[in-house]
């Protein structure tokens, strides 16, 4: 069993069109590096200097990692990671 990672539409160009890919367990930032090994370019789209970009939300099993241990949140086999761009829209 591995970690399942859900890829948002704007990043699927980098994952050969796949909506979901797999990664080895580890911290969130380990997973970003792992994905970048196979899908070059994904790391710099969602992170900058080892930090997840501000307008990218990452959820581990539906919980926002900012309220876990951020980039250092541990992800175990069987967990689901979702990458969701924050929509810079809305009201005033």
């Amino acid at each position, binding site marked *: 069993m591995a970690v399942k990672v859900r890829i948002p539409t704007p990043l699927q160009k980098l994952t050969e069109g796949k909506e979901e890919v797999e990664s080895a367990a580890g911290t969130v930032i380990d997973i970003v590096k792992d994905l970048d090994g196979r899908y070059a370019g994904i790391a710099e789209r969602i992170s900058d200097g080892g930090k997840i970009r501000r307008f990218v939300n990452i959820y581990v099993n539906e919980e926002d990692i900012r309220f876990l241990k951020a980039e250092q949140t541990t992800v175990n086999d069987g967990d689901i990671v979702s990458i969701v761009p924050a929509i810079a*829209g*809305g009201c*005033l």
Partner: protein
Amino acid sequence: MGFVEGLKCRECGREYKIAPIYVCEFCFGPLEAVYDYKKIKKSLNRKKILQREKNLWRYKELLPIDGEPQVGLNSGFTPLVETKNLARELGVKSLFVKDDTVVHPTLSFKDRVVAVALTKAKEFGFDTVACASTGNLAHSVSAHGAKAGLKRFIFIPATLEASKITAALIYEPNLIAVDGNYDDVNRLCSEIANKYKWAFVNINIRPFYAEGSKTLGFEIIEQLGWNAPDNVVVPCASGSLLTKVWKSFKEFHEIGIIKKLETKVFAAQAQGCNPIAAALKSHTDVIRPMKPHTIAKSLAIGNPADGYYAVKVVQETGGCGGEVTDQEIIDGIKLLARTEGIFAETAGGVTVAVTKKLIENGSIGKNDTTVICVTGNGLKTQEALTGNMLKAHYIPPKMDAFEEVLLKIK
């Protein structure tokens, strides 16, 4: 020709040509208009502004349009009311209300942003405008769009109060009432915006739309005799208004319209929806999203898009956040009406009540000049006051009945 050079990502700095886009395709950050301030400095000065019509377009060089203004030619330039009674009641010397309860044509500051958004939509060649809204924005897009001859699609949560639905429907837009809350409506609109070539004012036109808020700040400075106040208190939903008011002050400073800028910016929120105030209180810039529960519905955004930037502005200027309960909001609305004769919507109650607290706890000094932003009209949110009002004296049409009441009043 305009003074905007292009759009730029606020996060990674990537630059884009002027287009109806709003998000950086590389890092997903928000895009913002970039101006040529050197050119503006040569072109715009106090004298030129003073010669122009009293509407929000008197600062047009600092707004993101290319041609002449086309929409909202009577919007803006609302009164800056110097309060005497309210100032006395709160124990301060100099307190002003920027009174956007009377913006033309739909009585909220949204008429400013929509004036800019629809002018830009026309420049882009759109024939249809749209928005997701819980009230004020729906009214403004419906009304401004009617006069501008644009097709309108207005998306609202189906649970919206009947009076707010009427105030939009009268302008005969296509009103779509969605079974869900504001966040659901917004999500649906993002999908629709991807599929249909419409100008969604708060989605693909957002970088232009949001700039319209700056006019509130330009007016404050002009109306204070070309001075920035010591403090400004701004209500926060997404945090955009607060960041744009500060931006307007900085721009006037940058182009030399004012020499001194030492304003502290304060963020006002309801306790039932306080993600920005909560972040400020715990000295962090991480916004924790929440489920709103407050009578101040126009401020009920649990996951504020500009929350991070609003927090930064408040911290950078030495201000702070403040939050108030629903009862304090109602008391704030009543206080403003009773002392200054201004009937604000619930967001205005938040601003007044937070200001009261900031004065009481010493964050706002008694000898400072303070401006509070009251952004919408109370006639729109009357239901919030149910059970909190004085009662009328009901009498038969007889003199003795009246005099009996008069005795009681005395």
